[in-house]
C-alpha cells in the first residue's frame, strides 16, 4: 500500500508554480495566488476578501457568494487598506527605515489616496496592506450594519432564519447594542407568495440580490428583479409569473437573512435544534452532497453541501423535498416469515439461510434495486454467486435537465454495475428471470427495494415463485406477496456509499434511527451471507466496506478505504 | 369442630390459655398502633409541630365536641396507617433473595410477641393467674427469644441483596450481640437478690413497698438494662442498623407495603416487650405500694383488684414507652465505634463489677 502511494506521488507531475502576490493582512505577510477561480471556475484576479480568507481573517459580507457573480452592493465587506505610496517620479516613496511608505485609506486621508473599499470586488496588488480589523474598518462595518438594520423588522422570534442568519451573527460581532433609529420603520409586505415553494418577507430583505443572480446565472431562469426601487424596493417576479423553476429553494439557502423562506420548512422547527448529518441525495444519479437536518429521529429538511466536483452549492427542489417518505405512516416495521410465523430477526434470517442452503444451483434469482448502497449490492452479489443466481436491477429513467437532474433516477446504478448486480444495460436479465420463473427453473426470488410487479415480473408470474424473499421500506404488491419480509432502512437511517453517474464514490451517514424493527440491509445481509456461504464479511460496517474495496476491481484500483472516502467522495475509473 | 369444643370444655387450662393469648394480643396490637401515634404526636410537640390531626371517621367525626377532638388528637391515624400499609404496592425488587425476603419481616415480629408469654401482666383475675406461661426460667426464655429477633433484621439485610440493607444487617447483629451480654450481666444481681428465675417471684419480691423495688436496690443494673434495651430495640440513639442519614433505610430499604409495616410493628412490639421486662424486673411489675395494691391477692381475690393490677402494669409500660420516645429527641445518634465502646468497654465491666459488689454485699449480709 505504502509503495503504491509513493509511486503515485512520484508519477504525479509537480504542481505548476502558482504566481503569487505578496500582501499584508493585519500586518501579517501572506503570499496569495495572483488569480483564483471565480464562480464559473475561470481565473480572475484575487480579491481582498479572498486574500483575507487565505490569511484567516474573516470579512463579513452579504452579497458576495463564491458561486455567484460579484455584485458588490451590500457594502458589508468594506475594509481599510493601503497601497505603496508613489512619488511624483512614479517611484515608491520610502519611509525612514527604507520600507515602502503605505498610503492608508483611513480618513481624514491625504488627497489622492484610496479610501475603504469593498473587499469582495477589489483585486489585490503587490505590496498592498489590508486591515480587516482596524478601527476604521470596524467603524465602516458598524455604519453599514446600522444602515441595513434601520428598516429591519427585528422579528427574529418568528423568523425561520434565526440561528443561521448573517444579520444576527454580524449584529453580534460588529453591531451596536442599541438602535439610534427613533423614527418609524418602513413597512413592506410580508408573506409574499413568490412561487410554489418560496415565500418572501420583504421587510427582512437586505437587497443583496443573491437570489436574483442565482436565478439569472445559475438556474438560467431570470425571473426575479427588484421593483419599486427606493424606500419600498422589494424582490419580485413579474406580476402573474411564478418563481417556480426546479432550483428555487437554493435561493432560500443563499439568502443571508430570513427574507426568502421555504414553504416546506417554514415554521416547522428552529434551526438550532437540528442535527446535521452529511449525506448524499438519492433522487438521481447525480448524487448531490447534502446535509440532512433532523431532530428527535425525524427529518426536517435537506440542504445542499458544497462539493465542487458534483453539485457546487446547489441541489434541485425535487430532490430536496424528496424526504417525506422516510417518516411515512405505512412504513414496513416488522420482520416476519409467513412460513413459520417467526417474528424475530435471528429466527427469520436463520430460516432464510436454511432455505437458501438447500436451494439447488441456479434456482435462485436476485433483483436488487440500484437505490441500495454499494455494500448491500456487493453482499447480494456474493450471495448470488454462491447460489449461481441470475441478478439484475431495475432501470428508472426520467428527464435530465443538463444541470443537476440526471436522467437516471437511480442513485447507484454505477454501484450496481461495479458489483456485478447488473450490466451496462440495466434490466436486460429481468425477462430471462421472468421466463425462468414461468418455466419453473427458478423457484426462489430475492427482491431488494423494488416492486417487481411493476418492472417486468407480473403478479401472476410472481405467484409461481415458491420462496419470495423481499426487503423494502414501503409496502407494495411484491412485499404483500413476500414469504419472508425484511424491513429495510432509508439511506438516512444507515451508513453506506453510492457511486454517482460520473463514477464518484460518495458516502452517506446515518441521520436518524430506523423505524420499528427495521435494520440496515447490509447488517442482516452480512449475517445471511455468513450463514449461507460460511464467509464472514464482518465485523461491522467498516470491515465490510474495506473487504468490498479489495474485492471489487473498480474500487481496488482506486485504492479506496472507508477512512479515506471523506466527505467529498473519491473518484473511480469505471 | 365438636372435637375442638370438647378439648376446650374438658381442659380448662387450654381454654383459658387461649383466651389469655387472644386478650394479650388484643391489647398488644392496638398498643403497637397507638405507640406509633404517641411517637408521632410527642415528636411533633417536642418539635413545635402539630402531628397527625387529619383522619376523621365519618360518623364519629360528626359528634359535636368529641369527634373533632379525637380527630385533632390523631386518634384514627393508626387506622389510616394500617390501611395504607395494606393498600400500598407490595414491590419486590428483582434482585432480592425471594424466600428470605419474605421470611425476614415475620421473623422480626414474632419473637417480640413471644417474649410477652412469660411476663406477668397482672395478679389474678378470678382464679386465673395473669401470665401466659409461668415459667421457672422466665428470664432465660426471654433472653433466648429476644436474641432470635436479630435474625429477622440480619436476614432482611442479606435478602435485600443490596449494600445499604446489608450494612444495616451487619451492624444490627454486632450491636445485638454486644448489648445482649451487657443486658445479661445486668439482670444477674436481680436474681441474686430474688433467688429465683421465675418472673412472678421477682414481682413478689418487689411487692414490699417502694423500697423493695429493684430499681432502687439495683440502680446500676437498671441503667445498664435500660440502655441495652434501647440498643436491642434499635431505638435512637442506637438506631444504627437503619440510620436514614447513612444507610437510606438500613435493613428495610428494599421493603414496602405490609412487609415494611411488619418491621415497623416488630420495632414497636420490641419496645413494648422491653418496657414490660423493665417493669417486671425493676419497677415492681403490677404492684403499687399504695391503697393496698401491693398485696398479692389470693385465688379468690376481688375482680376489681385484678383489673387494677393489669391497669397498673399497663400504665407503667406506657410510661416507659414515653421515655423511649422522648429519649429519641434528646440525644444524637452514636457513632458506631462509640456504640461498641459503650457496650464492651463500659457496660460489660460495669455489669461484672455490679455482680461482684452485689455478691459481696449478699455474702456479708448472710454472714451476719
Amino acid at each position, binding site marked *: 500500500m505504502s509503495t503504491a502511494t509513493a509511486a503515485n506521488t512520484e508519477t504525479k507531475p509537480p504542481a505548476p508554480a502558482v504566481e503569487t502576490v505578496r500582501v499584508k493582512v493585519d500586518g501579517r505577510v501572506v503570499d496569495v495566488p495572483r488569480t483564483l477561480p471565480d464562480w464559473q471556475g475561470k481565473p480572475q484576479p484575487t480579491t481582498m476578501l479572498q486574500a483575507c480568507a487565505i490569511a484567516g481573517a474573516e470579512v463579513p459580507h452579504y452579497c458576495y457568494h463564491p458561486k455567484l457573480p460579484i455584485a458588490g452592493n451590500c457594502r458589508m465587506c468594506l475594509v481599510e487598506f493601503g497601497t505603496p505610496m508613489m512619488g511624483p517620479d512614479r517611484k515608491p516613496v520610502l519611509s525612514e527605515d527604507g520600507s515602502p511608505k503605505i498610503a492608508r485609506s483611513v480618513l481624514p486621508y491625504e488627497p489622492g489616496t484610496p479610501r475603504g473599499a469593498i473587499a469582495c470586488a477589489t483585486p489585490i496588488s503587490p505590496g498592498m496592506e489590508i486591515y480587516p480589523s482596524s478601527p476604521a474598518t470596524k467603524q465602516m462595518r458598524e455604519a453599514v450594519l446600522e444602515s441595513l438594520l434601520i428598516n429591519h423588522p427585528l422579528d427574529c422570534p418568528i423568523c425561520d432564519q434565526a440561528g443561521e442568519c448573517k444579520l444576527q451573527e454580524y449584529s453580534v460581532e460588529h453591531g451596536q447594542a442599541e438602535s439610534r433609529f427613533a423614527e418609524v420603520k418602513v413597512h413592506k409586505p410580508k408573506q409574499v407568495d413568490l412561487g410554489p415553494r418560496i415565500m418572501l418577507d420583504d421587510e427582512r430583505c437586505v437587497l443583496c440580490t443573491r437570489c436574483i443572480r442565482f436565478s439569472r446565472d445559475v438556474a438560467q431562469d*431570470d425571473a426575479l*428583479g427588484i421593483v*419599486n*426601487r427606493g424606500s419600498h424596493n422589494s424582490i*419580485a417576479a*413579474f406580476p402573474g409569473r411564478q418563481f417556480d423553476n426546479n432550483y428555487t429553494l437554493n435561493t432560500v439557502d443563499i439568502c443571508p437573512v430570513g427574507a426568502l423562506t421555504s414553504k416546506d420548512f417554514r415554521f416547522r422547527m428552529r434551526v438550532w435544534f437540528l442535527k446535521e448529518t452529511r449525506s448524499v441525495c438519492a433522487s438521481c444519479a447525480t448524487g448531490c452532497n447534502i446535509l440532512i437536518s433532523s431532530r428527535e429521529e425525524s427529518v426536517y429538511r435537506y440542504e445542499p453541501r458544497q462539493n465542487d466536483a458534483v453539485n457546487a452549492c446547489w441541489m434541485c427542489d425535487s430532490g430536496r423535498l424528496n424526504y417525506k417518505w422516510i417518516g411515512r405512516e405505512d412504513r414496513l416495521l416488522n420482520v416476519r416469515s409467513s412460513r413459520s410465523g417467526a417474528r424475530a430477526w435471528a429466527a427469520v434470517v436463520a430460516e432464510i439461510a436454511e432455505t437458501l442452503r438447500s436451494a439447488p444451483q441456479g434456482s435462485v434469482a436476485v433483483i436488487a434495486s440500484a437505490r441500495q448502497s454499494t455494500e448491500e449490492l456487493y453482499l447480494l452479489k456474493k450471495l448470488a454467486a454462491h447460489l449461481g443466481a441470475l441478478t439484475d436491477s431495475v432501470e428508472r429513467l426520467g428527464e435530465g435537465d443538463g444541470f443537476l437532474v440526471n436522467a437516471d433516477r437511480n442513485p447507484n446504478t454505477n454501484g450496481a454495475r461495479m458489483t456485478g448486480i447488473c450490466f451496462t444495460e440495466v434490466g436486460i436479465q429481468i425477462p430471462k428471470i421472468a421466463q425462468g420463473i414461468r418455466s419453473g427453473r427458478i423457484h426462489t426470488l430475492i427482491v431488494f427495494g423494488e416492486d417487481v410487479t411493476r418492472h417486468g415480473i407480473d403478479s401472476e408470474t410472481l405467484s409461481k415463485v415458491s420462496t419470495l424473499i423481499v426487503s423494502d421500506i414501503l409496502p407494495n404488491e411484491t412485499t404483500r406477496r413476500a414469504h419472508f419480509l425484511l424491513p429495510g432502512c432509508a439511506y438516512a437511517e444507515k451508513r453506506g456509499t453510492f457511486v454517482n453517474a460520473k463514477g464518484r464514490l460518495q458516502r452517506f451517514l446515518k441521520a436518524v434511527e430506523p423505524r420499528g424493527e427495521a435494520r440496515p440491509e447490509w447488517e442482516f445481509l452480512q449475517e445471511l451471507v455468513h450463514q449461507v456461504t460460511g464467509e464472514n464479511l464482518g465485523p461491522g460496517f467498516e470491515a465490510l466496506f474495506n473487504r468490498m474495496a479489495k474485492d471489487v476491481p473498480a474500487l481496488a484500483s482506486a485504492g479506496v478505504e472507508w477512512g479515506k472516502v471523506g466527505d467529498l467522495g473519491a473518484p473511480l475509473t469505471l | 369442630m365438636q372435637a375442638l369444643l370438647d378439648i376446650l370444655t374438658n381442659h380448662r387450662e387450654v381454654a383459658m390459655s387461649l383466651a389469655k393469648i387472644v386478650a394479650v394480643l388484643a391489647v398488644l396490637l392496638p398498643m403497637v398502633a397507638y405507640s406509633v401515634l404517641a411517637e408521632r404526636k410527642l415528636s411533633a410537640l417536642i418539635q413545635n409541630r402539630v402531628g397527625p390531626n387529619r383522619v376523621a371517621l365519618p360518623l364519629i367525626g360528626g359528634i359535636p365536641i368529641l369527634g373533632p377532638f379525637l380527630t385533632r388528637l390523631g386518634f384514627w391515624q393508626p387506622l389510616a396507617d394500617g390501611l395504607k400499609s395494606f393498600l400500598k404496592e407490595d414491590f419486590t425488587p428483582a434482585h432480592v433473595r425471594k424466600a428470605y425476603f419474605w421470611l425476614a419481616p415475620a421473623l422480626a415480629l414474632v419473637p417480640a410477641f413471644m417474649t410477652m408469654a412469660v411476663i406477668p401482666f397482672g395478679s389474678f383475675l378470678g382464679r386465673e393467674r395473669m401470665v401466659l406461661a409461668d415459667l421457672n426460667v422466665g428470664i432465660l426464655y426471654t433472653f433466648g427469644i429476644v436474641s432470635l429477633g436479630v435474625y429477622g433484621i440480619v436476614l432482611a439485610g442479606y435478602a435485600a441483596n443490596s449494600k445499604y440493607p446489608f450494612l444495616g444487617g451487619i451492624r444490627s447483629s454486632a450491636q445485638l450481640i454486644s448489648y445482649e451480654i451487657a443486658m445479661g450481666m445486668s439482670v444477674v444481681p436481680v436474681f441474686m437478690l430474688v433467688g429465683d428465675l421465675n418472673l412472678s417471684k421477682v414481682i413478689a419480691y418487689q411487692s414490699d413497698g417502694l423500697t423493695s423495688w429493684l430499681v432502687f436496690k439495683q440502680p446500676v443494673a437498671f441503667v445498664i438494662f435500660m440502655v441495652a434495651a434501647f440498643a436491642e430495640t434499635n431505638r435512637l440513639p442506637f438506631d444504627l442498623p437503619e440510620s436514614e442519614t447513612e444507610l437510606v433505610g438500613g435493613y428495610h430499604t428494599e421493603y414496602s407495603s405490609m412487609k415494611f409495616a411488619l418491621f415497623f410493628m416488630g420495632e414497636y412490639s420490641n419496645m413494648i416487650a422491653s418496657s414490660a421486662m423493665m417493669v417486671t424486673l425493676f419497677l415492681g411489675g403490677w404492684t403499687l405500694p399504695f391503697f393496698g395494691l401491693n398485696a398479692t391477692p389470693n385465688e379468690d381475690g376481688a375482680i376489681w383488684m385484678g383489673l387494677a393490677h393489669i391497669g397498673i402494669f399497663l400504665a407503667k409500660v406506657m410510661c416507659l414507652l414515653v421515655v423511649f420516645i422522648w429519649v429519641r429527641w434528646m440525644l444524637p445518634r452514636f457513632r458506631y465505634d462509640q456504640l461498641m465502646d459503650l457496650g464492651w468497654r463500659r457496660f460489660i465491666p460495669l455489669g461484672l463489677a455490679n455482680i461482684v459488689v452485689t455478691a459481696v454485699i449478699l455474702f456479708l449480709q448472710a454472714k451476719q
Partner: protein
Amino acid sequence: MTFTIPRELEAELDELATRYPQKRSASLMFLHALQERFGYVSKEAVEWTAAKLGVQPIHVWELVTFYPMFRQEPAGRHQLKVCRTLSCALGGSHKLYRHFCDRLGLDPNKHGLQTTKDGKFSVEFVECLASCGTAPVMMRNEEFHEGVSCEQADALLARCS
C-alpha cells in the same frame, strides 16, 4: 381586451431599437412611446417590450416601477402634478395637494396617482419641476403653472372641461 400594437408604431420602435448597441437600452424609449400611445404602461405592454428587446419582463417592470413618470394604470384627462420637493413643500404644495384632493373627492393620505371616478382628473405628487423660485409649482398635463394658490387652483379646475 387584447393588447395590439399599431403597425406603424411597431415599425417605429423596431427602428428605434436598432439605434442602440444593446437592444435592452431602448427599453425606456419603448416605454415612453407606449405610454404616449396608450396613456399608461400596461402589463401587456411590458411583456411585449420585453419580447421585442429579448429580456425578461421583470427587468422592464423594474424600470416601470422605478420611474414615477410611468403610469401603471390610465390617468384622467387632466393630470395634475404637484411638486413636493423642498422649495414647493415649504411654499405650500401640501396644502395645494390637499385642496385638489378635497375638491375632487380623493383621499389626500393615499400614495401615488389618484383618478376621479369619472376619469376626468388625476392628481399626484411629483418630485422637482425645476422652478424652485416660484413655489408652489404644478403642471396640468404639459402646461406649467407657477406660484399656485388655492384660488388659482379652483380657477384652473374650472377652466378644465
